[in-house]
């Protein structure tokens, strides 16, 4: 019962320490929001920044040109803006509102009608070797878009050919027969409605767009949740120091409770706080930032719990090592920030060099991030990876608690 009494007392003291509560609960939210906004634009994670902005001018206006324009507008990665004139397209490029412009000239239809099946089947050697210009089409781009400009031109060329193939092939009797047969087979397959195979893990990367939520927060929320969970080390150390400075630690030491009960009682309030903090951050991530909890949201619970345990027991160990407030500021903060930096809290783990990724496995942060990545960034979760990470986090927690217990005993004596 002694441990629970200490827990209740510390929770009551924490509730009255508004500054600490703000630091633990509001600060991470503010931090994630600010970083979400800023890095979202800088790193190109915002969805609108991930697509190419293209202006499209259809001067032909015929059905085939419409078909080409429609096909291009449905391409992933392209955001098509219809314009009325070349001047308007140029103006958009000058203002950097679009990266490139596609012009479908007034002679497009006539040029297409001149094509034969052979031109389509061998575009590199036939009349189409001149590229889009043979179809009275043109792709222009801004000077800053030099490298990607030719890629866009190739993409437009390929997409246009794909659209034109049925039309040009339809003019050939033999090709028309094959096309009819292929259409019938497709209808048969569609009617049969075969059961979709569940994607395997290797082909499931990454999570589909509709389940992915906001990409920035999908990365930021778990990373900064882990970072701030371990910032408890600072507040726990200060709590121990305060207890020692007040002299109340001596009162606890002479009370009829065991050392284990006392240390457990001092640890549990921060564990509860950590659980509340991380749950709130994930909830805010979902409600405010539109992040997804992944296909197996219930698995977040053991990961959050084991990470909290590792964080609070590390706090306990640190509390027995520091002797003053200035040591808390110097050592505890350095420890937390270094571990966060090594493990990949500040940038996605896959961006870290291989050696650093291996080194980071010596931190609890890394195991937590691995588990969160598995849960939040995959279409199909591999439970063994999550369980292994939780196991490692629990081992860290056990190790930290035992070391803290031994340090405390040595410190008492």
């Amino acid at each position, binding site marked *: *019962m*002694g441990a629970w*009494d*200490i827990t*209740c*007392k510390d929770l*009551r*003291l924490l509730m*009255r*320490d508004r500054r600490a509560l703000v630091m633990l609960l509001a600060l991470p939210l503010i931090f994630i929001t600010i970083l979400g906004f800023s890095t979202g634009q800088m790193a190109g994670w915002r969805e609108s920044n991930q697509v190419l902005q293209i202006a499209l001018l259809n001067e032909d206006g015929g059905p085939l040109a419409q078909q080409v324009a429609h096909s291009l507008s449905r391409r992933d990665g392209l955001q098509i803006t219809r314009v009325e004139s070349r001047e308007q397209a140029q103006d958009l490029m000058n203002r950097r509102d679009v990266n490139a412009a596609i012009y479908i000239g007034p002679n497009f239809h006539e040029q297409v009608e001149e094509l034969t099946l052979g031109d389509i089947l061998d575009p590199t050697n036939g009349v189409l070797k001149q590229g889009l210009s043979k179809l009275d089409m043109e792709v222009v781009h801004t000077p800053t878009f030099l490298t990607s400009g030719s890629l866009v031109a190739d993409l437009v060329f390929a997409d246009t050919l794909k659209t034109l193939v049925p039309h040009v092939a339809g003019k050939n009797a033999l090709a028309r027969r094959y096309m009819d047969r292929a259409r019938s087979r497709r209808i048969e397959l569609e009617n049969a409605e075969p059961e979709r195979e569940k994607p395997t893990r290797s082909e499931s990367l990454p999570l589909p767009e509709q389940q992915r939520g906001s990409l920035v927060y999908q990365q930021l929320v778990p990373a900064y949740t882990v970072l701030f969970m371990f910032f408890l080390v600072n507040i726990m150390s200060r709590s121990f120091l305060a207890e020692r400075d*007040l*002299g*109340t630690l*001596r*009162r*606890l*030491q*002479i*009370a*009829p*409770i*065991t050392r284990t009960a006392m240390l457990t009682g001092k640890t549990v309030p921060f564990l509860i706080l950590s659980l509340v903090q991380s749950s709130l951050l994930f909830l805010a991530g979902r409600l405010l930032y539109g992040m997804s909890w992944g296909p197996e949201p219930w698995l977040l619970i053991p990961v959050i719990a084991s990470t909290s345990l590792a964080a609070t027991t590390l706090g306990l160990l640190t509390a027995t090592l520091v002797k003053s407030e200035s040591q808390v500021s110097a050592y505890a903060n350095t420890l937390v920030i270094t571990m966060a930096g090594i493990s990949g809290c500040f940038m996605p783990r896959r961006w870290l060099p291989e050696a650093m990724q291996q080194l980071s496995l010596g931190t609890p942060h890394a195991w937590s991030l691995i588990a969160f990545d598995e849960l939040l960034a995959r279409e199909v979760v591999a439970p063994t990876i999550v369980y292994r990470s939780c196991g490692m986090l629990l081992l860290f927690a056990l190790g930290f608690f035992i070391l803290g217990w031994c340090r405390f005993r040595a410190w*008492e*004596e």
Partner: protein
Amino acid sequence: MSLLQVSDLRKSYDGRLAVRGISFQVNAGEVVGLLGPNGAGKSTTMMMLAGLLRPDAGTIHIDGEPFVPTNARFRRLLGVVPQDLAVYPELTPRENLTFFGRLYGLRGHELEARIAEVLEQIGLTRQADDKAGTFSGGMKRRLNFGVALLHQPKLLILDEPTVGVDPQSRSHLLDAVRHISERGVSVLYASHYMEEVEAVCERVIIIDRGQIVAAGAVRELLSRTAGDVRMSVDRIGTLSERLGALAAIETGSNGGGTIVLSMAETAAQPLCQRLTRVLSVLAEEQIEVKAIETREANLERLFLELTGRTLRD
């Protein structure tokens, strides 16, 4: 029967001996003072008795059994008032008492009744729900004292319980000590304020530099020293030769000094005769007496005589 028996207790820090073989006992219901200047070894002794420090040598028996600090039974027998204000300033006295009471296994109505009783005892009933951090030093000391009383210990260890408190709170605390000793609780009272020790203790142990220099009942210890009559004069002249062994002469500045007549019963002549003789010599020498004062025998004087130092050194 003695509730606390201490034998040849020793403790050193980094090779420096803080306690050098202290032995004493405290009987049930007795208030024993541990008197000594700062650094004499009082707090170290108290911490060993509270189980917070492990002695290098020596034994401690409580209630007839060897003291095992980790044993909860012994911890319940002890009530400790540390020198620090060991209470939570963010909690109210009621919350502080509730927390510590629960640690000692008190629950429900029993706990509530004890809290009410202790609040009354320490005079904080009206402030029971105010934050302790807003209290004066004296009120915090009273709360610090109350926490140790809550679980009704058989032996109360008080380490400088009145440091920095106002006279009203000091008087309140001393009354409370007398009150609980009347209920049969043994008290070990460490202080460097000899007035307090004289006021509440039946027996006194005087320690200096980690050793006991005197121990016994207050009356007995006081009988080992004596008061004196001190006469300040404007010049000394040939007083030393004329008064001889009748009185001691302390030379002051500007040729003046002080004539000191001991009130010890062991002196060669009664005080009255010696005083008459001194006054007649002063009249003959036409030396003017500027002031006369008497100093009573007290533990401070005894300590000075025993160690050559004052308690506040």
